[in-house]
């Protein structure tokens, strides 16, 4: 006997038909473990469907949920076949467990009612879209009102917060903006050189690099980097505050969350953006000059004069004007996504990603609009 306990026995379930009273007996024995092979109800029963079932233990060892599942299947089968299912001979605790799971339903595949028609899906989507749009518009409206009231009473504004955010925008983005802008200058110069050298017009590399950096690439690259760094940071900060009820706490104190949290950030990134763009322009110019001087044998002085001749002040200002709007787009996207964040850790992640995507999308759309406007105005 002692060995029998120590050794693991295979789970068994044997059917014995022809017991008295028109019943069949299912004898269960051995050790029932979830991670081992156990008999299934269907394989045990085979074709004996005509009789009531009585389950009896037969040298039953250790057991776990696998046995319970086996019995639940048996009970369900009997109920479906309108047979009696007797478990009185089983251990008391097993019977209790079986009673506790009396009403458990096996997971059903999605029913027809649950699969919604395309119309319902479309309507739900439209409703969600309408809600989102309303939310976005009202946020932009609140920000506009905030800016108006800031212009009226600049003393009530939290300037210190704004300065801190400006510092953060500037300091955290500077190294990466430097590197990327310089490399953009280098890349543009290389690409231009390949074509222009064929015509002996290598010196016009300066024109091409100068114009494309100042009008497009400088402000654009700086803005994309800011969207990735600062926009995401805004969304994560505000999202976290939302999750921790910090934003609720501001609201119940009657403090406008837009004035308190969004405006300083919005203003900081909008004010800093042109400076970063200008900085990116300089670095892009240096990148082009570096390639020209080292590989194309154009002296730095010649490059500088060529750039000066071609790139006018209107080119620079058009780029900087754009960058102000890029900054606004980044700030709006970051603050909006952060403040409308869902109250969960996953929500913060989603808000952050969405802030970056929305930010970059808005930058590109704004850029396209400006291309159109400048074209019409002939700038």
């Amino acid at each position, binding site marked *: 006997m002692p060995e029998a306990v120590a050794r693991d026995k295979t789970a068994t379930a044997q059917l014995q038909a022809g017991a008295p009273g028109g019943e069949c007996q299912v004898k269960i024995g051995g050790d029932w473990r979830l991670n081992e092979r156990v008999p299934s109800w269907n394989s045990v029963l085979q074709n004996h469907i005509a009789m009531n079932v009585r389950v009896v233990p037969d040298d039953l060892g*250790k057991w776990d949920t696998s046995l319970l599942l086996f019995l639940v299947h048996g009970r369900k089968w009997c109920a479906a076949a309108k047979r009696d299912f007797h478990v009185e001979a089983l251990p008391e605790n097993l019977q209790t467990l079986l009673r506790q799971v009396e009403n458990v339903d096996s997971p059903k595949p999605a029913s027809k009612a649950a699969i919604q028609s395309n119309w319902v899906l479309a309507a739900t989507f439209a409703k969600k879209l309408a809600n989102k749009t309303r939310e976005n518009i009202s946020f932009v409206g609140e920000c506009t009102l905030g800016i108006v009231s800031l212009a009226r009473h600049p003393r009530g504004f939290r300037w210190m917060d704004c300065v801190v955010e400006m510092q953060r925008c500037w300091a955290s983005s500077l190294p990466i903006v430097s590197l990327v802008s310089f490399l953009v200058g280098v890349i543009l110069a290389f690409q231009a050189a390949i074509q222009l050298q064929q015509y002996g017009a290598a010196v016009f590399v300066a024109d091409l690099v100068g114009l494309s950096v100042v009008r497009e690439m400088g402000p654009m690259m700086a803005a994309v980097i800011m969207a990735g760094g600062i926009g995401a940071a805004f969304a994560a900060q505000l999202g*976290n505050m939302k999750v921790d009820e910090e934003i609720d706490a501001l*609201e119940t104190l*009657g403090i406008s969350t837009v004035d308190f949290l969004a405006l300083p950030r919005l203003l900081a990134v909008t004010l800093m953006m042109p400076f970063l763009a200008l900085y990116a322009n300089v670095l892009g110019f240096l990148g082009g000059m570096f390639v020209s001087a080292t590989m194309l044998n154009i002296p730095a002085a010649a490059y500088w004069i060529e750039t000066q001749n071609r790139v006018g002040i209107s080119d620079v200002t058009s780029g900087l004007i754009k960058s102000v709007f890029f900054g606004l787009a980044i700030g709006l996207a970051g603050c909006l996504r952060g403040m409308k964040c869902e109250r969960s850790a996953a929500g913060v992640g989603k808000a952050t990603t969405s802030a970056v995507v929305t930010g970059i999308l808005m930058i590109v759309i704004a850029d396209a609009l400006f291309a159109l406007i400048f074209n019409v105005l002939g700038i």
Partner: protein
Amino acid sequence: MKNNSSAPVIEVKHLTCGYGETVVLQDVSFAVHARELIFVIGGSGCGKSTLLRCLIGLLKPFQGDVAYFGKSFIAADATQRREILKTFGVLYQNNALWSSMTLAENVSLPLEEHTSLSPTDLEEIVALKLTEVGLSGSEELYPAELSGGMKKRAALARALALDPAIVFFDEPSEGLDPITSREMDRLILQVRDTLGTTMVIVSHQLSSIFRLADRVIMLDRETKGIIAEGTPAELVAASTDPRVRDFLNQNEAFPKRTNQPSGGVLAHS
């Protein structure tokens, strides 16, 4: 403490609220009187926190009204709303201390926003408030540097910053050990007795309910409303509702435990 002759401090009239399409509470009405300490209790998901969010204006009700000192909060315009907001403080379940600010800044922000005190006065008031809750000398600490109990105290200090007539508590002893929880209860009583603040506490901590409550309002998920109202003692003694008795009964016979496990999953039978 109940003083029915005066106008109620908070009056909730036929409030129906919820999220999206789901109605959590339906047609709930009750009133809270000055200096009363009332508990809103009920099982998980019964709408305690939803009711609180409605009361403090973070959730717009579908129907009904919440009035403070006889003035409607729901129908109030921006200026009136701001005035009403000043009359209550809230202690949130997660404390909601602003993590980027020191304790002193946390407590002084409401004062800065709503008063025109001089910086020195502000400092003194902040020190006073922090001392009231037993946190003197912690002015320059950040919320992350505090223990759970200290955070609760700091949050209470902030809730009390504007000397509100009412303080709402969302699960004030959540996550606190029994001793700290008892201290918190003592602090709540002390504030009520010294400042005469009306308190509305959402909780399911039985010990706190029996220690503190002047009156208990019990919500229920199925009924979507109030199923019992009264002092804890009254409810224990007189309520015939099994849900109420079940909730408040501290000594209900638990299924008898035997020393010898009667077998079970993975046991030898």
